[in-house]
Structure formats: C-alpha cells, structure tokens
C-alpha cells in the first residue's frame, strides 16, 4: 500500500490515445485467451489511480468520492479504446461481441441424459444348476431381535462375499415386524403388556456361487454366526421380490371395478 496520501489532482490522468503498455496485437499473441495477465501492465497513472483509490478509502469520504469519480471516468475511456486484454482491470465480463464470449461453457460437452421415468423394476432370473454348476440368485436372510447384531452380521457377510469375489446383487432390509407379548395373569382375565419385540431382517443377495464353493461358504457363515441370529439361505423367487413391494389397495379396487 502507498504510505503517503496521494491527492487525486496530482495524478496525471490519461485522457485516451494509444495504449501506453504496448500494442494490441502483441498482447493477443502473448495471451491467446485475451485475458489480462494477473499482473496487468498498468501505466503509472492508472496504477496510482487504483492505489490512490485504495489508500483514500481508509480515510476521508469526500476525497474518496473525488477519486472514484476520476477513476470511473478514466475506466470508461479505457473501455472504449483499449479493452483487449484489460478485462480484469475494467472488471467487466465478456460480452457477446468479444472473442471470449462463452468461455466457461461446458454443458454442451457432456453426454445427453435421458430423463428418468418411474418404472417398475424388472427382475432378472439366472439359470440355477446349469451345465456350469452355478447357483442362480441366492438370498441369505438373517433375522434377529437385536438390530445392531443383525446389521453387523449382514455387513460381515457382504464384505466376506466381496472378498471372496462372489457377486453381491443387492443387500437390503425387510420391514421391521413388531410383536407385543401379552402376559395373562394367573388369576385374572386381563392381558397385560409384558414386552414389545421387534424382529429385524436383512437380506444379502448373491449370484454366481459355484456348487463346489457353496458348502465352504455356508460353513464359514455358519461358524461365524452370532447368538440370536437365524440364518436362512434360499433361492430367490418372484414371491420374495414381491414381498418387498407395498400393495396399493385403491389401485387394486379400481382395477377390479374396471374389469
């Protein structure tokens, strides 16, 4: 920053004419984007104008207005005459007639996205016990009363399958079932609420398990089964898929009415 206070009237003002810091063409060759370099080659007058403006900002307001008026006049002249390469100095964006118009555009380069329609997911079926001795889609279902335990076990099974390069199609949770245990007193007819039990189920769906490796995998999972978790391995069927979807009674009513 300038240490001394510069009076605006002392600054020689540049009233137009040729660009003091070089030719237009020279600038363009050096700067293909035609953007000003970060450190623009200002003439002394312009630099001091800027600097003067900054210094005076921190002090009195009257002089500030003076300086700004002057700087505005100066920059307007610059706009008209020496805009090439002075974008930063003048602080105006690329206009349509400028060569730099649309310089930041990139959306036209991205691949076109098809708008997503809400469709029902079609399920895929795989041969099971084909000539290559592979199972199709298998569901490993883990059920327990304890949420953390069953979730951690499901994570363990998923990572184990990843590690053994077994393809995991999906890993999802079935909705929680809540059971209320009612306690009937010995000499009474009223049922009393004893406990509320929530049953959680997690499913890991795998595909492409070879029949020679299946018993080994089963043994590993069985021996690392925690207490209180029920394990079930079965083939994936359409009924399993449908059980995840919610039924819409109004839609079914309307369909029944129509048909």
């Amino acid at each position, binding site marked *: 920053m300038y240490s001394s206070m510069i009076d605006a009237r002392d600054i020689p003002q540049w009233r137009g004419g040729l660009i003091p810091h070089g030719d237009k063409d020279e600038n363009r060759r050096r700067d293909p984007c035609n953007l000003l370099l970060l450190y623009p080659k200002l003439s002394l007058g312009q630099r001091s104008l800027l600097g003067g403006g900054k210094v005076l900002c921190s002090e009195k307001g009257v002089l500030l207005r003076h300086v700004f008026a002057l700087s505005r006049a100066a920059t307007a002249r610059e706009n008209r005459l020496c805009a090439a390469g002075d974008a930063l100095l003048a602080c105006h964006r690329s206009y349509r007639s400028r060569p730099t118009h649309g310089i930041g555009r990139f959306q036209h380069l991205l691949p076109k996205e098809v708008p997503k329609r809400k469709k029902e997911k079609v399920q895929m079926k795989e041969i099971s016990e084909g000539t290559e001795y592979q199972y199709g889609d298998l569901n490993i279902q883990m059920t327990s009363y304890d949420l953390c335990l069953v979730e951690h076990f499901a994570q363990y099974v998923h990572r184990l399958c990843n590690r053994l390069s077994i393809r995991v199609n999906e890993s999802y949770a079935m909705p929680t079932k809540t059971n209320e245990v009612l306690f009937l007193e010995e000499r009474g007819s009223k049922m009393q609420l004893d406990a509320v039990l929530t049953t959680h189920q997690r499913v890991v769906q795998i595909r492409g398990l070879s029949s*020679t490796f299946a018993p080994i995998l089963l043994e590993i999972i069985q021996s690392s089964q925690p207490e209180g978790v029920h394990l079930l391995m079965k083939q994936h069927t359409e009924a399993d898929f449908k059980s995840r979807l919610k039924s819409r009674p109004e839609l079914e009513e309307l369909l029944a009415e129509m048909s």
Partner: protein
Amino acid sequence: MAALMAAAPARAGSGARGTPGAGGDMAGHCGARAMAAPLARRAAGSARGVCSAAAQRPWRLFGAMCLLRLPRITQPLEKEEEEVAALMEQIELEKSHYSDHEIRKLEEEEALRRKKESSYDEDEARGKTVIMAQDLEEKWEQKFLSFKAAPRITDADKNNDRTSLSRKLDSNLMLLVKQKIGNQELWLLPQVEWQPGETLRNTAERAMATFLGDHIQAKVLGNAPYGIYKYKFPRAIRTENNVGAKVFFFKAYLQSSDLSRAELKADYLWVTKKELGDYLKSEYLKKVNRFLLDL
C-alpha cells in the same frame, strides 16, 4: 455311474511316496466321469479331488465321512475382546439417551419425593397408574433370578468322556472310528471302499451308515469332496494292480444329537480338531487338517 473328477492333480502326499510321474499321468487319464468342476479356493478346506481313472490304474478308492457335530454355544471371548466390549458398552451407555421406562421411573421418583416433602398427593394420585416403574423392575429382577441357564461346562467335560456328544459345546466334534487296515487297527474317519456304480458321496454315506446305523440324521454338504489322502501299500503287498489307495473325504453335519440307535462298531470317539493329533497318524492328520475349519 458318476464319480468325481478334478482338474488339479494331487500333491505328492503320503510321505512323498507318490511319484510326480504318477501324478502327471493321473491328470492325463481323466476318464469319462461326470464333472463337478472344483476350483482351488484359498478358503480353508479347499476341495481338491484327484482324477482317478478306471481299472487301468491300480488305485483302490475309499470314501470317508467326516461327521461334524456343530457347536451349541459360542466360544468365550479373548481377553482383549472382553476389554474392548466393556469399553464400547460404557461409551454407548454414556452417549445414549434415556429410554421410556427410565424416564417414567425418574418422574415417579420425583413425584414420590415431592409427595413426602409436601403433601398434595390428592391431585397426583388420581392420575397415577396402579403399578409403578419400580415395581415392574423388581418383578423383572425376580423373574431373572428364577431363571437358570444350562451349564456351559457339562459333566462329560469334567470326566473327559470322549465318547459322549455333550462334551465341548463350543467347538466342532468329529467322529473317529477304529478300523482295521491291513494288519493294523487304526483310528480313522469312517471309510468304506468304493463300489463301481455309485458316486463317491454315496460311498461316504454308506460308510457313515455302516458305523452308526441307518437312521442318522446328517446333512452332507455338497457333492464335491473336501480332501484326499493318497498312500501306497507297503512293498510286501504291493502288486501291479494294487499300488495303493486313495481316500476321499466328505463332510456332513449332524442334525440331531440323538444317537440312541445302536452303534455297530464299539470303538468310536468324538474329538475336536486339537485332539485329533492324539489319534491320527501324521500324514493322514495333515490332510485332514487342511479341510477342517475351526473358527
């Protein structure tokens, strides 16, 4: 007729008596048998079978069954595991919020305290429930105390009775039978010779049935064998057509622990993996240990 065939040649087992030449020839002479393509996997218990040809090669085939009783209870935690578990529990407890029951209990204690200090129990007693949270807790405590858990260490453990099934409840137990091979009586997994016209899995099941009776509820896992043990007969018995024997191991899980049916062979044992070394020969043991999973 379908025995099992594999692409991977057998390692030179049986005390380096199997010649590499024989192994190479084995792979070449893969006969017309049904395939169950085993792939070598790095998990414990990799299934390797040996391609054994028909009557051209003088190896006798046996099918052996490794019958496992699954653990009934979980293994105890290690010292570090216990410490970590305790720490995590404490952290969780300190971070957690009060549950409904605890809030109710606190409120009731508050109300009781206020009732004792100053008496406006008329208003509050009306909306009060008959049972307080504290009473519920006491009821639960009593119920818990009256519950007796089954012992983890059973009598059989204390007596070290190796023929009983209720011994080590937290590990796998497998069946060992004393069999006569050649002139010797050896402790082995039950095995029986393969008859032409049956799968090796059937052979193994037959082996199980011969030693334990027909009504065994065991579930064989898969058609592929888990391991193989190959040995050559001693030179005295060895002939052109009878070089040695190959034993294919299969695994099965015991479904029910009810073995009240008569055991045909008297000498049987249920042992864990660590105790196998007391009974089996070293080469045999090495092969068997390869497919035993002891988590």
